[in-house]
């Protein structure tokens, strides 16, 4: 007697009667979005070979972890946060500072202490630190809603960026931190791109599983209720502030994990990776893919990465402009989505 959603039902219909596919596809944005993006990805892989998939896969995995984590806050709980890049940065910098073995005394500029920890010892600490900061920030943010929430979350992104940039004897400011090692288990270093990709995808799988467990639990149902009417659900005995704080912290820890992964992948971090724009980009990805679905976040991240890669093949677009051109496309997509499909491609929640 499991309550079937309408989506499930149309899906079983298609399986039973394949010709229904054509009828369903005619007006089914979700199906089209899925087919288009997955087809695009497969086509790209066939065209460019597996090497392409390995290079792009890790970028995708990091963006996907971030967008799945942000979707917990934006899509499921209805808190439009534009500050997630802060937690991403906290995770990245923690891992960078703890694992880097660069010898800064030779560089003379902005010497900072280095610890040379192994990655797997630093990562949990980065996640934990992101969580602790999230609790402190969340307690303050809990009382805001809607557009003011957006404003203060902008503030969090800007404050964290300024801390990364200006706390120079911890982060080396604009110089950034070099020589961050790849993860290693004993003597086995995940040095090859394929190994790292598998590691990143495994973490993504873990995050997705965790998110799935959260959103299908009773806790997740309360989150959606908070999104719809916080006061009404409070009347039924839920301490909504605790729920919001909990999901905010969980989400921030996931972003911190993505940050740690990012740091050890690029092997170099500087504040430019954690600017406000990245955060806005992330929000755009989450909304594009679909609010309140985990699969949607994956689709969004995939679409974004493919968009970026696809632009490399546009003859009229110089390579230096790709970074900006993807923002233009994403911005326009955001406007179109808000106009025609406020829940995103496969979303379950309209803003």
């Amino acid at each position, binding site marked *: 007697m499991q309550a079937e959603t309408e989506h499930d039902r149309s899906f079983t219909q298609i399986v039973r009667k394949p010709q229904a596919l054509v009828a369903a596809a005619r007006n089914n944005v979700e199906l089209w979005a899925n087919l288009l993006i997955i087809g695009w990805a497969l086509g790209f892989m066939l065209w460019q070979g597996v090497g392409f998939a390995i290079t792009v896969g890790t970028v995708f995995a990091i963006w996907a972890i971030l967008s799945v984590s942000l979707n917990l806050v934006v899509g499921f709980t209805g808190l*439009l946060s*534009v500050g997630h890049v802060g937690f991403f940065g906290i995770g990245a910098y923690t891992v960078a500072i703890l694992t880097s073995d660069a010898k800064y005394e030779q560089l003379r500029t902005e010497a900072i202490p280095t610890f040379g920890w192994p990655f797997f010892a630093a990562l949990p600490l980065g996640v934990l630190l992101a969580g602790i900061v999230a609790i402190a920030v969340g307690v*303050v943010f809990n*009382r*805001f809603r*809607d*557009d*003011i929430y*957006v*404003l*203060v979350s*902008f*503030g*969090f992104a*800007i*404050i964290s960026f*300024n*801390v990364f*940039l*200006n706390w120079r004897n911890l982060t080396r400011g604009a110089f950034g931190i070099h020589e961050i090692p790849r993860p290693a288990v004993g003597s086995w270093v995940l040095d090859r791109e394929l190994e790292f990709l598998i590691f990143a995808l495994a973490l993504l799988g873990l995050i997705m599983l965790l998110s799935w467990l959260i959103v299908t639990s009773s806790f997740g149902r309360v989150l959606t209720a908070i999104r719809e009417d916080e006061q009404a659900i409070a009347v039924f005995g839920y301490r909504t502030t605790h729920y919001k704080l909990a999901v905010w912290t969980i989400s921030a820890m996931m972003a911190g994990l993505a940050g740690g992964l990012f740091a050890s992948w690029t092997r170099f971090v500087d504040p430019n990776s954690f*600017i*406000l*724009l990245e955060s*806005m*980009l992330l*929000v*755009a990805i989450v*909304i594009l893919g679909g609010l309140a679905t985990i699969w949607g976040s994956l689709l969004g991240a995939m679409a974004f990465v493919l968009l970026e890669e696809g632009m490399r093949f546009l003859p009229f677009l110089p390579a230096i*402009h790709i970074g*900006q*051109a993807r*923002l*233009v496309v*994403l*911005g*326009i*997509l*955001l*406007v179109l989505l*808000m*106009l025609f499909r*406020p829940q995103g491609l496969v979303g379950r929640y*309209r*803003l």
Partner: protein
Amino acid sequence: MIAQRPNLNNTLAIALTAAAAVYVGWKISQSPEQAVQFAFNGLSVGAVYALLAIGFTLVYSTVWFFDLYYGAAAAIGAYGVFYLRSQETLGGLYAVNSIVVNVIFAAVTAGVVAWALYESVYPRFRARVDRSVLFGIGGVLAAGTGVYTGFLLTNPKDLHINLSPVIALGFAVLVTWLLYQAYQGVVAARVLQGLVVITGAAAAALGVYFAYLIANAPDAKLYLSWGVSCMLAGVVGLAFYRGLYVYMRARSQSPLIMLVASLGILLAITALTSIVFESTPRPLPEALGNDPWTFAGATIKGFNVFTVGVALVGFLFLLYLLKFTSFGKSVRAIGDDEEVSKVVGINTTTVIAVVFFIGAVYAAMAGLLSGHDTAIQPRMGLLLLLKGWIASVVGGIGNLYGAIVGGFVLGMIEQFGIWDLAGEWRDVISFVLLILFLSFWPKGLLPRK
């Protein structure tokens, strides 16, 4: 009156204010000269924030959503000046002139002019003149304006010459209209016609003379470019409202949808600016009043005084517009209840479109003033916008007086805040102030009634 029960929040708020006052007092007693200097800086920075907050507040209190386009408008204002002046400053080192940009702005301007004619002129002649004739004339006018805009943008070196006919025409029309308003009701209708013809001719002659003066004054180009940039930003703002927000608002009432859509616009325009101009900071040419004056041991540039003046004039102008004109009445009516205003017969679309135009012009002005004071870069818009937003929250959301007070307060606190901290923590100070205000004075300094 209700007795205020003492609570933790009030006590904390009072303690915070007292601590801030004691700190400032202590700093002033330590070094009065420096205090004056920081106050000057605060005023000039605050003027920019205030200007943004005023435009922001006007728009917010009419349509009740935050339009992030104004960040882009600030960037358009600053980069517009850069675009028009880059060929002649720094030996044309960073000169940019792109046919794509010119065509886009020409098209947008033509579209907006066509819409304005259709909204305001067309209904008056609809009954008397054939549709196709009206549409033909309107189309030619709109296309002409578009071509003219494109022409202005393509030849920025001759801006003062190319713009002078418009100045002559504008001046003549404005003076004639003002005199017409003044005569009306004072003199008889028959005399009025004669008077208007005579004064109109005189005004036209005066306008031509002004145009002649400007056409022979290359120094005026910079200030003309201010006007052109503000107009362009305003026109784009209006176009976004009429071409996009109207439909979006018809579909959904959620302010978040509008916010996210305008976030998309901001993202796209910021990125486009970076593509056209590169994302590295650029200088704007020197404007008036660059020689510092010394006053009470502190120095201040004439330009900063000018900035404060612009903010005050902008505020007074908007105050006049809202309090004493029928347009202002419509704006306030729409802010109170849009549906009812529609029923009462206010053309809400037009009024709101004009409001968006004005808001964007203010944002562009703030952007170019701050651009002259420091350097410009494509990302500046977002940060300026956030400062304007904070200023309007600090002052009291939706209150015009609050906006100007909030802008100056924010500027002052930012400047006094970096006295002991380094200047790079300025943005952090603003946001900490925002969070303090939201926690303790959520309605701001001057709450909207």
